[in-house]
């Protein structure tokens, strides 16, 4: 799915240059579940942004599904993102004025899906995360766990190839966290997703087939059980 070679990302802040990523080489196979961990400031979010085409590396290439994201024009990257890449955020990032269903629908808007089909897909996605009865609720009327489940529905409604999740359980308590991870695991299996998950959570790390660690911008594979989705 992904091949990263020599990916380096520098941030320039005034005269200083911060090396957020230093020559990362990484292969992510189709249907893989990869956990990325590491200390704060290590470069985890930076890596995820580059995987999602939200930012471009300073050096190196990122091949996604056979195409080099670093050489595609912005509009094409946007289209790739709309069709094939789902995002989940630590703070859920739901649009506060839209209902749960409308938030999920927002992910289908750039794909030009017809309204009726859109509604059906949204209902299906909300059902699959167990929120079929909360479709008309505003984010402020939902618990943190429910909001993140809407976040999952929004990320997966378009049936992307990969799901990139940046500390999706960081704002949740332990029980809710387990619930979300179980849900993610189920959907990962059902939908043959490629899942890249940034987390500090040791419980998740233990369940993950493959774990990468980033320190000071350098990535190393720490654990690889070779387990593939069944």
């Amino acid at each position, binding site marked *: 799915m992904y091949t990263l070679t020599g990916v380096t990302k520098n941030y320039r802040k005034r005269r200083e240059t911060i090396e957020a990523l230093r020559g990362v080489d990484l292969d992510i196979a189709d249907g893989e579940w990869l956990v990325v961990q590491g200390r704060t400031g290590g470069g985890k979010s930076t890596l995820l*942004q580059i995987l999602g085409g939200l930012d471009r590396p300073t050096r190196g290439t990122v091949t996604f599904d056979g195409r080099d994201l670093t050489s595609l024009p912005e509009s094409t990257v946007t289209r790739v*993102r*709309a069709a094939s890449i789902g995002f989940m955020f630590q703070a859920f990032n739901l649009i506060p004025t839209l209902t749960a269903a409308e938030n999920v629908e927002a992910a289908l808007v750039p794909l030009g899906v017809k309204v009726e089909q859109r509604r059906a897909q949204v209902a299906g996605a909300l059902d699959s995360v167990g929120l079929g009865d909360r479709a008309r609720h505003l984010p402020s009327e939902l618990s943190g766990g429910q909001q993140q489940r809407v976040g999952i529905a*929004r990320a997966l409604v378009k049936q992307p190839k990969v799901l990139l999740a*940046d500390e999706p359980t960081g704002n949740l308590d332990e029980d809710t966290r387990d619930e979300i991870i179980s849900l993610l695991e189920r959907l990962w299996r059902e939908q043959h997703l490629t899942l890249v998950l940034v987390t500090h959570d040791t419980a998740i790390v233990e369940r993950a087939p493959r774990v990468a660690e980033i320190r000071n911008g350098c990535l190393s594979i720490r654990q690889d059980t070779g387990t593939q989705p069944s």
Partner: protein
Amino acid sequence: MFLLLYLRRELRRRLRQTVVIALGLAVGIGLVVTITAATAGVRNAQAAVLHALYGIGTDITITMEPPPPPKPGSPQASDFGLTPGAKDQQLDLLGLPPGLGLLDEASVASVARLRGVTAAAGGLSLVDQKLTVPSAASLGPGGKPPASAFPTTSTVDGVDLTHPHLGPFASAQVGSGRSLTATDAGSNVAAVDSSYAATKGLTVGSTIIIGYTKFSVVGIVRQPRGGGSSDIYIPLARAQALAKFKGLANLNDKVDTIYVAAANASTIDAVQKEIATLLPSATVTSSASLANAVTGSLAGAASLANQLGRWLAIVALIAAFAVASLLTVAAVARRVREFGTLKALGWRSSRVVAQVMSESIVTGILGAVAGVAMAFGGVSVINTLAPTLSATVAQNPGSAPPQNVSLNDSGMHRQVAQGATHTVAVHMTAPVTVTAIVLAIILAIAGGLIAGSFGGWRAARLRPVEALGRVE
């Protein structure tokens, strides 16, 4: 459409912000429309004054400077050679109004032939003074005349009946009896102004005496707005035949004003120049130049509306647009994460910008509606509170100071008196026109566009990563 759904949700759920921005725009627009209406009201009032003076349909008037007035006290000018005699003497003197010279009636035809002129009519205004020169015996010890010796003055207008739509008589409305018609041209008939008729107790069928000649009153007329009317209207030819001037037995073939109608408003300037070439010594006055000669509270209101009003409107608009733009940019800044998320979902920048723009434009339209409502409120306040404006116009703009007649102990003097002027009172009504409303809507949408462009520009520059790094 998702854009509309999202738009509706945003405007409704961020109602307070929507209302604040819309009200800001509304105040600016309301002021602009109110001021536009007030300016139009003042302009209408000016037009009403000018019509009262020179009649509806008259675009240009031509008058002549009178010959220089003789110096007061110089022998030939100082008196009429009348000295108090043994008996009271009744005099009925017809004279020209102060400050007007004479034009040849032939000029009327020449002017009518000019390009861009649809019609030209002559007019001759006379002042009829009736007075009693008291007998020497009745003069008091100090030589002061009794009060009854002061002249009574009426103004008489000779009307060109072949052009009933030109000149001051054109705007007169018949109250009772009938108007003067072309067949009256040679008859001793008169139409009398209603307020003059009231003070003199005249009705249709009454007889009046002008310059020792009897006229029968065939109609009582009223000018639509008080002020510039004459007391008596008679056929032009009769007025010419009656009046004596500087040793002339009559003023046949003389007029003192030529009223000109131009083909359309845009040709007035050109016609004015043509006339100036044709009659180099004449004073050519258009409504525009006459408006400049208007003084009084109306002129004050006009310049206030034109200067202060325009500035106020511009400042209000700029302030409204600036506030709307700042609030919109601030709103976008608060929604950085939201827009970043949408970009992460694969929304193009243009779609995000369209969202911001359409929110602003709809807010602008709401502002337009509120602004038009405010404008109607403001205009009705103006219309109920507006004082009656008065305008003062010299009787013959551009002429020498007018003259008057008075009596003193040594007889009658022609004496230069300042200020023979018309004062016309008009009530101002500020009209809200469709144009003003369309202007308001265009302004509001422009305001929304401007505010939206700032907001959209901010949103377009946003990189999705910026949105994601931030955790509140």
